[in-house]
């Protein structure tokens, strides 16, 4: 990111802990967590759809809660653990370059829980936060859990199935 000294004078350092890694970014106080993740850290999984807290595509987990990163200022997040979609899959030592997908990610593929995929990172992070609080959600609890995440392609029935399947996989696995 090219820096202009005059435009930078209001920037300040903030230390963000994203997916267990510590980063110091220089941001204007008005920069959202979403823009800091996307523009300063190159983590473009969280998407900017409305930038007004109306759609959920930018959902990340802050501490243990799903938040809209477009409604969260980067400077508010200093020192707090942030999880994004990029931190979900792990390197698989047995599978070469392949990632070992998280159960929710695996379930999304198996259930075709997307079409264009643009809301998918937000849906998955919302479900992850839900399952951390409630490992055995009912269908209605799943619906409530993703009710803040719009899907214009209308993949909802498969998103519900994927969430329930992932919950089951995690219960069996864990």
């Amino acid at each position, binding site marked *: 990111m090219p820096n202009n000294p005059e*435009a930078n004078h209001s920037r300040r350092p903030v230390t963000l802990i994203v997916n267990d890694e510590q980063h110091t970014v220089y941001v204007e106080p008005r920069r959202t967590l979403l823009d800091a993740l996307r523009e300063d850290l190159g983590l473009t999984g969280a*998407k900017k759809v409305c930038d007004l807290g109306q759609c959920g595509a930018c959902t990340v987990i802050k501490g243990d809660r799903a938040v809209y990163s477009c409604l969260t200022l980067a400077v508010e997040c200093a020192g707090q653990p942030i999880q994004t979609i990029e931190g979900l899959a792990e390197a698989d030592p047995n599978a070469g370059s392949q990632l070992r997908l998280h159960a929710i990610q695996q379930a999304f593929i198996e259930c075709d829980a997307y079409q264009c995929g643009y809301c998918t990172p937000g849906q998955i992070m919302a479900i992850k936060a839900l399952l951390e609080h409630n490992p055995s959600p009912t269908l209605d609890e799943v619906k409530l859990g993703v009710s803040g995440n719009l*899907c214009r392609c209308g993949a909802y029935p498969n998103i519900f199935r994927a969430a329930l399947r992932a919950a089951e996989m995690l219960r069996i696995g864990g």
Partner: protein
Amino acid sequence: MVKVLKTKIEVEGRVHEEVVVIDGELPAPWDSKAELTIVGQPVPRVDGAERVTGQARYTSDIQLPGLLHARILRSPHPHARVKSVDISAAEALPGVRAVICHTNTAPIKWYRSSFLFDSTLRHVGDEIAAVAADSLEIASDALRLIKVEYEVLPHITDEQQANDEAAPPVWVDEPRNVIGGEPDIYKRGDVDKAFKDADFVVQATFRTPTALHNCLETHGSVAQWEGDNLTIWDSTQHIFGVRQRVAEKLGLALNKVRVIKHYMGGGFGSKGGAGKYTVIAALLARKAGRPVKLMLNRTEENLVTGNRDSTVQHIAGAVNKDGTLLALKLVGYANSGAYGGGGMPIAGPVQEMYRCANVYTESWSLYTNLGRHSAFRAPGFVEGNFALESLMDMMAEKVKLDPLDFRKKNYAERDPKANLPYSSKGLRQAYERGAEIIGWHSRAWADRPAVDATHPDLRRGFGMASQIWGGGGGPPAHAIIKVNADGTADVITGTQDIGTGTKTVLSQVAAEAMGFRLEDVRVHVGDTSLGVYAPLSAGSMTVPSMSPAVQMAALDVHKQILAIAAEVLGARASSLELKGSVITQRKGKKRITVKELMHGLSNYMVVGRGVRGPNDNSYAVNTFGCQFAEVEVDTATGQVRVLRLVAVHESGRVINPMTITSQLYGGVTQGMGYGLMEHRVVDHRSGIVLNPNLTDYKIPTALDVPLEIVGEMIDLPDTIATTTGAKGVGEPPIVPTAPAIANAIYDACGVRMFQAPISPDVLLDALLRRDQPTLVEQPARRELVPVSQLSDHEQEKGGDI
């Protein structure tokens, strides 16, 4: 031998001619007896891992060294003249790298007589100037520093008044605001006589809303110059269309422009080609000498990138006592915005859906000072079907027939418009299957009881509606396949996967036709410099256009590999077969894998080529379907809950039941949104759109969708339509949803819905008119068939305006 042929193709309800060059052997069709092992399987998306890990790079995610961020200054007025623009303060702001407007940019012709930056602004959101800066925040600050002087002009935003003599013209050379200068008129038979002779005439006026696509990824482009070569990443449904338009607007040769789109966050018809933002990004990048990203924000998305026209439709039907449909008449007005591309086919369903000898339609597409219309998933047919399928239920009631029986009685065995046989039509099977799943014949529908004693305000009902649409695709569509030294194949086309599963489906077709394992095939799309020409991903065209081209290229590969294997193995090619990436002798022991064969050829690359062959214009190619809804209406609050929605469609062969079911879910969900929730609200006095955001413009959430959606296909390979037997399915499932729900609401509580969306206030108003007609002022209704002209026939009273 090369053959050059002409063929007609249908795109979004309009037919045009294309030239097709055939160099090679067109595939023999896969009919219903073809033994297919990969096509027809529910293969999970081949790019699923990218989509669930955040690794999929959409246009909005592109990051480049030195990338600048751009924003556009837009008109705050619905109609104004720009007297002056002062960009000096914006240019002086630190971090600003380029500012462009009409004073410092060569005029680039755009729509009609207007320019990229025009001195006349024709709707709120029209482009005035643009800024590229080091950050989005600085670009936004700079916009506030641009000083514009306006001369505000009178505006018109209401389609009901746009055609009035007193209405201000949006274009000075089109004084009555009619796109094309006149309505689009169609007629067959003798409509007037049929209306006079009929036992019953039913007429009504229906209104449908302006619907906004609200693709989650907004429209936008990233532009990068390397010398005089321009690369554009664009959120588009047609990379070759963007290349063509950008080259034309900037005066560049086609090979100087490369357009890339690997992933896209929704299009639904609105991303058919380059927008002003695309050209503006390229101009800013050239001026700044650095790459520029220009993604629209949500407000801009909802003001300028297109919409489904709102309509007012006066419709009438003539029917005999025995249920024979005699005549249909439609006069419709569509609000097409300031830069409309011609009328959407709102009369399509009336002209094509049922056997009906006498039809008259008159479609007006009107200019207004609002953002332009654009194709939106089955444009015209969604709007027109709401009116037709509601009218069908009104007529069925008049002649005391079950709504499904009435439709079956007037089933079209041939295309009534073109008077041609259908290539295939599985609607009858769809009716049977849908009725069976929802329990249509065993439903309690006449007595409309309260659901139970504790909820006296709840009523349940059933409704259904039919669907017709094109979706046969056609040329030009090309594919090439390269087989690598390790026996894997790259399928390369210039099509695009807009989220529908194109890559997955084409992988299946390629693997099947080559005789390769699916995992040995990779499909590349979305890059004009690598891919060969492919059409717009719209009009339900992608699969029926692209799958035969890929099939032909794959069969070319198959044939070449067998010929090489015959030489290497010392066998006759005709004695060999290739399946699962292994070549074997049918009656013998010789065997070699494709990997072994290719490995021994010193990097020789087998290259296959394929094109989409011509359409057989002696048939009408259509897709069909029907949907059944069960709803629960709360007569106290006006809330409607869709309990079940059963969608059964026929679009030829099912290549992938998993991705096709997702298409059905998507169509039903958007159709439900259209019927119950979605409505752009305009304040006609100020000309301002009041809800260009995702809070006030309601799209269905997880809590709104039907409690149960059942999606099924009638799997009927259509080998006249395409050599793979497949037709398109992207648009069909949105077409019947809203009227099926409206008809179910009537069944539940006895009020006919003359307006969509059927929001709680609309439904409560209708209930009030039913229960207390004397308290409610009944608005005037336009009689399409004047009562005075009818003899002593019965006349349905219904209708609202």
